[in-house]
């Protein structure tokens, strides 16, 4: 579904990603792990078109994504739940979800999506009239996830959904994501610093360090790898 080949991108003239290659098949759950500054968020921003490509290729559902203007990419079925949540703080929770449903598919499936989002994340139903900026961090993360789901995406990209959350809240968000994945079979691409959780349910994983893929494989392979165990799992 998503195919990235020898991709180089960065800011101004400085490359942050070096020859990154990555494949996501339909229905898979892929995790990307790695330390701060490895280029994980940059990779997501490049897929969404916020960071300019330097060379290489990104294809989504057979289409050359780099030829699609950034604001059209959501309409192809890519939902990006960004790092730091980035909810529309001055819009109500419901309006945030409506903006998620800005795509044609989102508008078509609006009623049914909203019902499902409220069923998974009942707190959004309670708070639907409240301005998103007045919510707690965990609640804002749920708004961001709900907003992503509201577009009826083919691929949901989650950038550090646990960032800045208390451990118990982060666990809750993670459980919800797994519940949503079980219910829908949605294709997921996850960037996460909580490596143990990220690899636990993933089909495949990639380890990104200083802009390069240093390791890839099934999550079992990665969990068994000595370097991963030492550096990320604390074993």
């Amino acid at each position: 579904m998503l195919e990235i080949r020898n991709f180089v991108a960065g800011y101004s003239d400085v490359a942050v990603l070096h020859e990154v290659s990555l494949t996501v098949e339909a229905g898979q759950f892929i995790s990307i792990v790695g330390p701060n500054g490895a280029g994980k968020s940059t990779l997501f921003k490049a897929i969404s078109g916020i960071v300019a490509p330097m060379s290489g290729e990104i294809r989504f559902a057979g289409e050359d994504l780099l030829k699609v203007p950034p604001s059209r990419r959501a309409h192809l079925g890519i939902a990006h739940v960004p790092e730091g949540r980035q909810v529309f703080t001055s819009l109500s929770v419901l309006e945030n979800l409506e903006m998620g449903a800005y795509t044609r598919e989102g508008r078509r499936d609006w009623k049914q999506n909203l019902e499902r989002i409220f069923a998974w994340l009942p707190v959004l139903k309670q708070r639907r009239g409240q301005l998103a900026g007045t919510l707690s961090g965990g609640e804002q993360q749920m708004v961001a996830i709900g907003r992503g789901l509201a577009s009826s995406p083919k691929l949901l990209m989650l950038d550090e959904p646990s960032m800045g959350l208390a451990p118990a809240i982060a666990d809750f968000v993670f459980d919800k994501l797994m519940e949503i994945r079980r219910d829908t079979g949605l294709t997921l691409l996850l960037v996460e610093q909580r490596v143990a959780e990220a690899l636990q349910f993933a089909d495949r994983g990639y380890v990104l360090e200083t802009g390069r893929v240093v390791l890839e494989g099934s999550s079992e392979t990665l969990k068994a790898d000595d370097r991963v165990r030492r550096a990320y799992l604390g074993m």
Partner: protein
Amino acid sequence: MTDTQILVESVLQALVAGLFIGAIYGLMCVGLASIFGVMRVINFAQGDFMMLGMYVTYFAFVAFGAQAFGTAVGPFAAAIVAMPVMYGFGWAVHRLLISRVTGTRSAGMEAEGHYAQLILTLGVALVLQNGAMILFGAEMVSVRTPLSSAAWFVGPFGDGMALFVNQARTIAAAISLVVIVSLWLVIRRTNLGKSLRAAADNPEASIYMGIDVDRAHRVAFGLGTAITALAGGLLAANYPFHPFVGLDYVIIMYAGVVLGGIGSVPGAFWGGMTIGLVQQLSALVLPTQLQNATIFVFFLLIVILRPQGFFGRNVERT
């Protein structure tokens, strides 16, 4: 009539005048607020967009407004015709000029492109003022309707008190209110309005939602231009104008927007309304030459006492 009654009568008279002129100032400010609030672009040319709106109104009135609608309704019909014309003008100015120094293109610029925006809109203002001077000449022009000097007579009430309500200003104020309420409904309720607010709130996340942020900015810029131009067209029925009239009003507009709280559309309306009221009520006790000075004394007081404006959030101080 006793002295008290004469005083009460003149206060009421000034209040009515202030409310009506305030409604048009409010409209003007709302036009600026939708540009300033959505795009964070400081537009020095807003007063000159208004001046253009006045001339478009004038020419539309002379060309067909008077024949088609008569001299009573014609000026207002012409002002409404100026709206789509000026929407197109604003849209084009954004497409050709403003977009080069805003949005995604301003990312690498100094102060996020704000310097470039200031210089650019100042340049646009100068070109419009002097271009209008060449094309239209320096004489004062006005869109006269018999309603400009006609009044409704309210009263007598109390003990022989009576009010004169200028008909042209009443109609202008009514049109202002209708446009402001419609704009507010569009912004709050429609998908277009919500996407404009989202683009103002978080441009990056808006792109992730599939909102074309550059297009949203163009629409906001066109709307803001059209609304300020309509306010100009409505003022033209009572106030003669010339190519440099924009300077007088752009200051009122910024004062109104800041008073109301930056980024708030209803705030901008109340800011403009406040300025209209202060201006008219001050004329009761001060010579008319000091009207504008009073506005700024009041403005400074508000900025000192409530820096975020009437409707602003604490984080966005003037």
